[in-house]
């Protein structure tokens, strides 16, 4: 289903990090968020990045998406080196290769659901594929809500609009930052189902950061970070597999979920 043609389209790797290092602060009080991380993200997969607070999972995603600049190492999306791009190239990258889904939905309040979904295409001056639009809207189940403003939609609906927006431009990869973090369990399930559907049926590549093992269990592959390094790389793990991994590292009574919510800011 990928629209892309040429050599890149056939490459099994959609994005990769090579020896990525990210440190904060000056030399006296240096904090290492990413410690020589190298990882490939495969095309057509839903990859979940997990880890406790401060493990560097959000930093990894921000560097991958060109939102943050690594201290050293390289980031590639579709063989384009993101880590060395200037503002203009980043804008082009965001228009063509990258989609975003945020924890706090981030819809434009003055635009209707439909306008929000079409916004990236319009910004990039790209034609709207109406058939694709109907398909996406159908999958997220927003047919009757297209004229509504974000303030008239529930949280789950807003996030589904955000998902549709990310999918609409059919980017090489969608980065989802805690997409279910602000949702109740039912809405979470709907959104996750949708993400899995878009990967399975339309070949979309998605990288999702989450601290919720249940959300991670929807993924094709789960990476676990701890102290800036990848400690686990699991292929199609079950929910119990994931819980087991965390149980190994931590006291099971004091699970990663509660640790995370205490000071999420540091992520």
């Amino acid at each position, binding site marked *: 289903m990928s629209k892309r043609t040429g050599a890149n389209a056939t490459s099994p790797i959609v994005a990769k990090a090579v020896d990525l290092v990210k440190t904060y602060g000056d030399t006296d009080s240096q904090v290492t968020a990413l410690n020589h991380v190298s990882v490939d993200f495969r095309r057509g997969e839903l990859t979940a990045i997990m880890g406790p607070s401060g493990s560097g999972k*959000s930093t990894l995603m*921000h560097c991958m998406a060109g*939102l*943050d600049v690594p201290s050293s190492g390289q980031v590639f999306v579709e063989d384009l080196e993101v880590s060395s791009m200037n*503002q*203009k190239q980043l*804008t*082009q990258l*965001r*228009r063509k290769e990258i*989609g*975003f889904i*945020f*924890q*706090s939905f*981030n819809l*434009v*309040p*003055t*635009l209707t659901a439909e*306008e929000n979904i079409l*916004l*990236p295409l*319009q*910004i*990039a001056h790209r034609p709207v594929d109406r058939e694709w639009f109907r398909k996406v809207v159908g999958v997220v189940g927003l047919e009757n809500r297209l004229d509504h403003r974000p303030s008239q939609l529930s949280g789950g609906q807003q996030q589904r609009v955000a998902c549709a*927006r990310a999918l609409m*431009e059919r980017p090489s990869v969608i980065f989802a*930052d*805690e997409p279910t*973090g602000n949702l109740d369990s039912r809405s979470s399930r709907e959104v996750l189902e949708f993400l899995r559907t878009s990967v399975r049926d339309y070949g979309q590549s998605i990288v999702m950061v989450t601290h919720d093992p249940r959300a991670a269990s929807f993924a094709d592959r789960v990476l676990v970070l701890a102290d800036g390094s990848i400690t686990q790389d699991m292929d199609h793990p079950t929910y119990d597999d994931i819980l087991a991994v965390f149980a190994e590292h931590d006291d099971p009574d004091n699970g990663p979920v509660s640790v995370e919510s205490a000071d*999420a*800011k540091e*992520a």
Partner: protein
Amino acid sequence: MFRIGLRDTKAHFRRFIMSIIAIALGVAFVVGSFCFREMLNDQVAQMMGSNSDADVYVRGATEEKQEPGGSVTSYNSTYTEISTSIIPDIENVDGVTSADATMQLGNAVLLDHNGDALTTVGAPTLVIGVDQDDPWRSAHFVSGEYPQTDDEIALLEDTADKAGLKTGDTAKLIVDGEAREMTVSGVFTSPSTQLGAILILARPSFVQHVLQEEGEDTSSIQFIGVYGSKTTPLDEEAQQQLADRINKALPKSADAHAVTGDSVRDDATKSIQDQLGFIQPLILIFAAIALFVGAFIIANTFTMIVRESMRGYALLRSVGASPAQVFASVLIQAVILGIVGSGIGVLLGWGLLEAIAKGMSSGGMPLSGSPAPSATDVIIGVIVGVVVTIIGATLPAKTAATAPPIQAMNETVNPEKPVKARGWIGIVMVALGAAFWVLCYLGAAKRVDWQWLKDLGSGWTLGLGAAFVVIGAIVCAPAFVAPAAKVLGWIPSKMFPVTGKLATRNIGRAKRRTANTAAALFIGVAIVSCLGVVASSMKTSVNNLVDNNVNADYVAMSASMTQPISTKAVDAIEDTKGVGASSAVYMLPTVKATNAEKDVMTAAIKTDLLTELAPVGQQDGDAAKAIDDGEAAVGRTIADDEHWKVGDVIDLESENTSVDEEATKQASEAYQKQAEAQAKTLQQEAQQLAASGDVSGAQSKAKEAENVVKQAQNVDPKQFVKMKTETKTEQVRIGAIIDDSLYADSIFISVPTAEKITSKDMMMVTQMYVQAEPGANVEQLGKDLKKTVKPFYTVSVLTRDEFKSSMSSMINSMLAIIYALLALSIVIAIFGIVNTLALNVSERTKEIGLLRAIGTSNGQVRGMLAIEAVILSVFGTIVGIVVGVAAGVVIRAAYESQGMTTLTIPWDQLVLFLIVAILVGLVASISPARRALKQPVLDAVASE
């Protein structure tokens, strides 16, 4: 809390810069307006002190009823005139050094060393009758001395410098249309600058003589000035004592009363100051705009700061700070801000005034009044600044203080309160204002004839209408922001589909804020559009009048405002070769229509004017024939006002003062007789002495007698001139009523008719129209006419185009000042827009970050904000233009009868305003956009 407030101020200082500038500008205007008034007051007081410097003034004892609408010159003419014959009585009073009735000529023209007339910017040229015996105490001679003969004058140093004349030079003085050669006897200074006035001292006898020739009654006068000392002014007590002594000596029949010089000066000073008072409110309007925007910018700034510091306030609250303490910590910042801003503002206002004073001095109007602000000005300025700041900061401070800690943790923008109610209230006010304007229009166009409307006057309906419309527009503006944004956003939405749409929708998000920001621009633009319409209507009306109604090839006008064209010049022009039809317009200032309700001007003309030079279009009856027949032709406006129709009779009355030949002769003869008698007595005494053998005594007596005879022979006959006042009346039938606006507001009669009631000396020619003889060369005539008027110096001959442009240039220079003020209000409006955008950007940090995350380029973000700013400024400008033009249209209609016959809307100017508005928006969006782009995308979108 104080320490927190202080520390916050430091932290936010860069944020505050714009607020400080706005407050400083507002305060500068306020302080400047006060200082300006005080500077003028100071100047007036100084001038009074040096120009009316007598210790005691003797004036009429009976107060005259003051005429309504007294002009600038009539400020002290509220007492009956007194006879100059009491001067000797006053001079005999103990302690009086000199007493004299200082007479002035207001219509002289001095030529500079090149022979060109010396002109001023509005200041008068005065020839003052003083000399060694009747001195002017405040005059200090730099060189030379008082004029000794009638052929000498002394000049003010400033005047001498401008004219390039010095003591001993020969100067030409034009008096009564005649150039006279005068020797400069001296150059003097006065303690106060004279605002560029040209001051010339001449002997009193010279001034008196000229006045008499002009038909002025020199035997009675408003004031007689008395000096108690030739060198030092008396203090108030001594003045009072002297006045009391003089009052005792004054005969009852003189109907005169002596008062202290100080009291006269105080009264006159106050009265002039009152007349100058109108300037201050004008400046204060702009101060109000600046302060309004200032308060608004401060409110915006604090809203931003409070929004960004919410977490901190929540923390303070959660560790036990009371709402009042949080409130105080915000308000302290406002107070500091207000003090800093108004401090700068006071200095700025002062500097501005110093610059104005400098500018006026170099423009030929030296000021000695001090532009420094008084302590009261400084206090008022600081209080205004601080109060405005506190008003601006109160609401955000309240938000900071009252938000519950939990809510403060979450970043939420409270939805706006609905603006519908405001919209309706505003619309009602605008409608009310419009109704006043309609009333004004109806009244002016004579569509209705309601007495109460006439009593109210067009000024009130105009003013009330304007007030309601402007305030109403400001009140209802928020309700129109969203629809206006849709309309104005239509073009940008087509040009830039995404950014245009986003910008258009964003405008409607904070309607009040948008409307308030636009209001600053609105007021300024409204004022200027209104004046633009009035000014261009005036210009076109004049041009149309000249083009359609005036056939004259040339118009002769007086170059100085005060000097009429002399009758000799009129005769010379008439005699110039090639002149066909010509007519001077003789204004008759002494003639009154006693059966008219209002003051009506009467003018004498030749019928050439009505038939050839400016032919009458529409009229009842035949104006030319009527005037030839000794009847009057009346303008339509007057005829309507007075309900006159053809066949009615006007009672014309003129009070004429002239030299009483008989009395003069008698006085002269009486003097001669007295002298003869004296000589005879002396001769008899001499004979007696000779008879008694005292030869030397007899010789000296004979010599004395001889002297008396000689003196009597040489005596200046001018000193016996006696004046008389005669009142002549004439009943004139109205033979025609003229519709043309050129003739709308005067009564016209023929010169012979005018001469029945007044003399030619009393007629003032202000303009003269000339047409070339059929077949004559028009261009050659122009050259000849210019040659003809050359010896009269003050008369200029204008072609039709020059005549038109002379009117326009007057209007243009008036507008220049207003445009300067507009430029300032635009600067302030830009601040407002920048600030509002900055607040919008700060509120939308996340949204803008998101837009960028999904591929919005920097250019697109800039474009979006630029479109927002442009919509905002164009919104304000368009409302301003609509209101301003409407006001201009109404004003034009209200003054139609005063010659504003044609309505012209200066479209090019209005389009220019719109273009400027677009530029203003673009410029204003630069800095907020930079700030929006400086924010890293990550910060904007990262959760938490």
